[in-house]
């Protein structure tokens, strides 16, 4: 593996990197949804009221 390389097509590695890409997108969307759903409740729990500190 030492020496400069031009990337060649490797379906197994492409699947591996694709899995990481998909996981990242799913986490961005999923956590975003959870934040909208539970964010106000969590803020109320932590601060004791509606989030208005901004």
């Amino acid at each position, binding site marked *: *593996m*030492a*020496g*400069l*390389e031009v*990337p*060649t097509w*490797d379906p197994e*590695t*492409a699947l*591996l*990197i694709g*899995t*990481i*890409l998909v*996981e*990242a*997108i799913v*986490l*961005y969307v999923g*956590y*975003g949804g959870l*934040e909208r759903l539970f964010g106000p409740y969590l*803020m109320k729990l*932590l*601060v*004791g*009221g509606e*989030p*208005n*500190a*901004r």
Partner: protein
Amino acid sequence: MLGSVLGGAGILGTSPEMLALFVGFGLVVGVLFGFFGMGGSFLVTPALLMLDYPAPVAVGSGMAFVFGTAVIATLKHHDLGQVDYKLGAIMITGTTIGIEVGRASVYYLESLGLAGGIISVAYVVLLGGVGAMVTRDALKGGGGGGVDHEATDKDLDEYEIPEIAKTIQQTVRIPPMVTLRGDVRVSAWVITAVAFATGVLSGFLGVGGGFIRMPAMIYAIGVPVPVAVGTDLFEIVFSGGLGSYLYGQGGGVDLGIVAPLLFGSALGARVGSAATAVVDADGIKVYFGGMLLIGATAVGIGEVGSYIGSSALELLGLVLVIGAAVVVAFAILYSTVSSLRSTRRQETPAAD
């Protein structure tokens, strides 16, 4: 040695204990990344090296983690309109070649049996240097070492181009010249040189390189701070993706490490990013600098432990790296909740 103590059967070849450790560490790293806008990734590779992962796996998995983190952060910065796609596209070539040079160096050193040691020494120098710089700036009350949260609220036209960037723009006028967001006109070769140099660092250490590339984009190219942050992340998506692919072809990317780290860090980054609206970063920056200095010491201790075969020293190094990151992340969370509660208390009588 240490890794075998924690290892065992589990999901994706990773034991449940290690999965929990990676998710927790990812959460901490995410809080730091979300809050400071940098610094998350360069704790991951040293920690993996201390867990006895081979250097290509530690660097390759660190880079794949950076790739995933960059995808998430770019989606957010795209929504905020802080990505210069032209600048990013020009940088991709230079960074990609740089990453490949860095990656080839890792495999070459690995074939000589020197990779782990040299990468650890590079981390000691890098973490120590950046840590000293951030701590000095924090103690002086300066704005260096991370994203200035107030600065990111300004319009792009309001940013002054640093003197050094103006000098470079006027001196190096090798065509083709390109115009970037914020009305910056610069030679494409300057952009490529910055991209290549930081790419070598990324490929060699498995880091995003944002802590070097962001200042380089601001001071050498002259782009406004928010654009430097957003474009840096966009560019890492491609260069980091390709770097991860190349490491993956050599068996250097372990999904059992990357997936749980990303799972934790994506949540942590949301929390850290939300905390920037509440907490003044200057008060915490000194802890961040201290954390990097402790990280440098920890990598040094871990490397000495590995050299003399002392698992106790290796464990001490690992505990210091993770412990320092945990302390700073908790300082951010504690300050955020305290600040929110104090604001709430002040507003309650007014509401009555």
